[in-house]
């Protein structure tokens, strides 16, 4: 589990901070060791199986219209064969600048069983098969790079990011854990914890990570029939923006790797409506990252969004799509060579489909991820194929990075 080990690294440092922080954590200048490299990588796990055929639409394939029926909205054209889902229209300026790209017809080595649970486990483990190992590929990558400090890598938001699990230190935080107690309660909480170094250090770290500019007032419950608990400081609909903004803040500092999830892709019914909220969150997130890190850092940033598997080529009886195989990977950022759809397109004819139902995966999704790691962190191909993604054959360099 990431937390166990990341905490240990954190505690080692917090013992150095000691009591001065206790007096006024907000005023104590913190300095962190310089990060070992300068590029920024954001890995977004799209949980629930994003429908790659709807997001990056192969409208040039003769079978597409028949498989998918009438699709609403004006889908902006990408390259004369693929078009982008209209809900991502706001990202077209990035595409035009070469800062948005896709790899199509990719999947993990997971086949046939189509369980979210196992599919995500395999995606995050980065292995050929689920073999009981509990660490994730981003953590193994950190272990290879070395020189990792407590905030070099950050798992953000709710829910475990297994992709960062493992022995290398990883920080984690969810922006809606912001401490919003009254000043008096905070002082008392510091006092009751002051003789317990571990609790005290964690509380002070939480205070530092909390967004103190935003003070929605004390958490203590007001007597309101409808709201027995104080509402969370951020409405759930905006939680993803908080995650993106927090991520951007960290990336402007010492953090080089960040990972979080965007959920809501399991579109079994009424696809055209069901996929919109998740795509909206994805577009918001990418734009908030871009705005949040600033132009200079954005130029060094690669955002990679991956999902556990794709969905069926054909719409089902309720206008949705069921669990499939091949899907798409999304890339954004100034560090990537975007403006194109990468991948080896298999076609949508029935005979070309995997088991005559899913987009045929023509490439292991770990390969583009590995090429990006190679470019960003300078790992050699042998390490990537043996340690980070054991069993992977990366193939030729697709040139995903500038």
């Amino acid at each position, binding site marked *: *589990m990431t*937390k*166990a*080990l*990341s*905490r*240990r690294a954190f*505690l080692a440092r917090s013992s150095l901070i000691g009591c001065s922080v206790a007096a006024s954590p907000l005023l104590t200048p913190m300095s962190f060791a310089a990060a070992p490299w300068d590029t920024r990588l954001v890995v977004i796990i799209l949980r629930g199986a994003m429908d790659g055929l709807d997001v990056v639409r192969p409208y040039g394939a003769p079978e597409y219209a028949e498989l998918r029926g009438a699709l609403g909205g004006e889908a902006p054209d990408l390259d004369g064969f693929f078009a982008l889902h209209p809900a991502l229209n706001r990202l077209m300026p990035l595409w035009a600048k070469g800062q948005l790209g896709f790899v199509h017809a990719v999947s993990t080595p997971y086949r046939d069983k189509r*369980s979210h*649970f*196992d599919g995500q*486990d395999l995606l995050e483990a980065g292995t050929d098969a*689920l073999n*009981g190992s*509990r660490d994730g590929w981003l953590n193994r990558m950190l272990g290879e790079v070395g020189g990792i400090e407590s905030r070099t890598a950050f798992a953000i938001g*709710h*829910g*475990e990011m*297994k992709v960062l699990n493992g022995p290398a230190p990883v920080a*984690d*935080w*969810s922006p*809606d*854990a*912001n*401490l*919003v*107690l*009254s000043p*008096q*309660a905070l002082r*008392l*909480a510091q*006092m*009751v*914890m*002051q*003789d*317990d170094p*571990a*609790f005290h250090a*964690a*509380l002070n*770290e*939480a205070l530092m*990570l*909390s967004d103190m500019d935003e003070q929605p007032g004390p*958490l*203590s*419950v007001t007597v309101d029939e409808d709201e*027995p*608990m*104080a509402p969370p400081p951020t409405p759930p609909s905006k939680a993803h923006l908080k995650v993106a903004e927090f991520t951007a803040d960290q990336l402007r500092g010492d953090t080089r790797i960040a990972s979080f999830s965007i959920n809501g892709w399991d579109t079994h019914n009424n696809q055209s409506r069901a996929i919109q909220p998740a795509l909206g969150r994805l577009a918001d997130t990418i734009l908030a990252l871009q705005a949040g890190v600033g132009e200079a850092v954005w130029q060094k940033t690669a955002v990679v969004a991956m999902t556990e598997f794709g969905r069926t080529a054909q719409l089902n*009886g*309720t206008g949705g799509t069921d669990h499939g195989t091949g899907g798409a990977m999304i890339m954004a950022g100034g560090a990537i060579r975007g403006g194109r759809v990468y991948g080896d397109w298999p076609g949508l004819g029935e005979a070309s489909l995997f088991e005559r139902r899913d987009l045929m995966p023509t490439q292991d999704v770990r390969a583009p991820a590995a090429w990006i790691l190679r470019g960003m962190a300078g790992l050699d191909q042998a390490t990537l194929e043996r340690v980070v993604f054991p069993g992977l054959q990366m193939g030729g360099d697709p040139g995903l990075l500038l």
Partner: protein
Amino acid sequence: MGFSAQLAEMRFGYGMSPVVAPPASPEAMLTALAAPDEMATRFPIDSFGQFSAWVVETRKLRKAFQKTKDQEKREAYRAARRAQNEVGMEWAMRAMLRCTHTQCGFRERLVAFWADHFTAKGKIGLLRTATAPYIEDAIRPNVTATFGDMLSAVVTHPLMLHFLDQNRSTGPNSKAVKRNDRLDGLNENLAREVMELHTLGVGGPYSQDDVRQLAELFTGLTFGFDGGFQFRRGFAEPGAEQIMGKSYGGDPARLGPVLEALHDLAVHPVTARHIASKLAVHFVSDTPDESLVAHVTERYVASGGDLMAVYGALLEHPAAWDTPRANVKPPVDFIASGWRALAVDPDHVAQLRRRDMRRTLVNPLRDMGQPWQDPNGPDGWPEQDEAWITPQGVAMRLRWAVSAPQVLCPDLPEPMGFVASTLGDFADEHVQFAARAAESQSDAIGMVLAAPAFQRR
């Protein structure tokens, strides 16, 4: 030092209660454990058999709507799913109430300990609420049995067979595979975890070949929702298996040799040591006194894994009482012991709205890092204290401490009395001061629950 009633409640139960008297001695703790399980009767949870009947019913509803696309049938199916989600929440509340009102907190802690040791959960939608019935059937009645009995109950339980893919494992030379080559073939998942997690432990005296042989012996263990556990001979790999130097089974394949192998694993001295060590870590310290582990191991071996004898050894050893309170309560135990400290009233809980339960139980557990009955993998929740003392975890605990109690207990207790009834002799001057100096009663209660004296045991 030696036995202390207050420490007994904290270390081996869900903390002190203002209304339930603590146990008088280690012997009294064991007597209570051997007595009938009152909490299971007072706050019932479905058996897996009852749960399976719901699954069968709901699958029928789903089929009906998928066939006809009829809106009414779809609504009937959805209603069944919704009702089950509510039942799942109700079971979580009852689990909290058991911890709150029991006279034998040790039983509830042991149920949680073994449920974690034998982690299983549903991997598909319909089975998402199946963990509580699994615990009710396979774990709870066996916490006072032998380890071998519990192991057999777990390994033949439908939820474990589902969770670790045993139900689809087929012998490469089985009749079923010969007839249908689309079957998956051998799956080693359960066999590996039985050796690595459940019995011998990682680093135990077994090889990859032993795992494979055990997996072959396990072929045939499967289940159906209408009949429960089944041994399907057609799935079984023909011939005998050699596991750690001993031969099991032969033709025709039977369940008996599987249980025999489980029994042998259960009484193996390396298993004894693994279990003794886990108990000591869980209840006493992340780095337990070696003499404690040795003492419990010895009793385990001597008794053939008789769990009552094993607990007796744990409770009678001085280290059980003299070790400083360093273990951090995981989030579920933190919240459950908060309920107990507040003596949360079952009648009040019964009229809470579902949203209240989400805000005071389901969401906080997720935010503290321990979503209800949903651990990441078969290795369960971490024992190391550092896993829980994270900035986010501590922030969320503090937040829960100042905001949830008044939802659970509208008539909050007087703070100084609450310090005494909750922390007893372990209240330090900072907590006393904070409980007096807080601006509101809810903050005062919150400071007591946020104090390390409450969070450690």
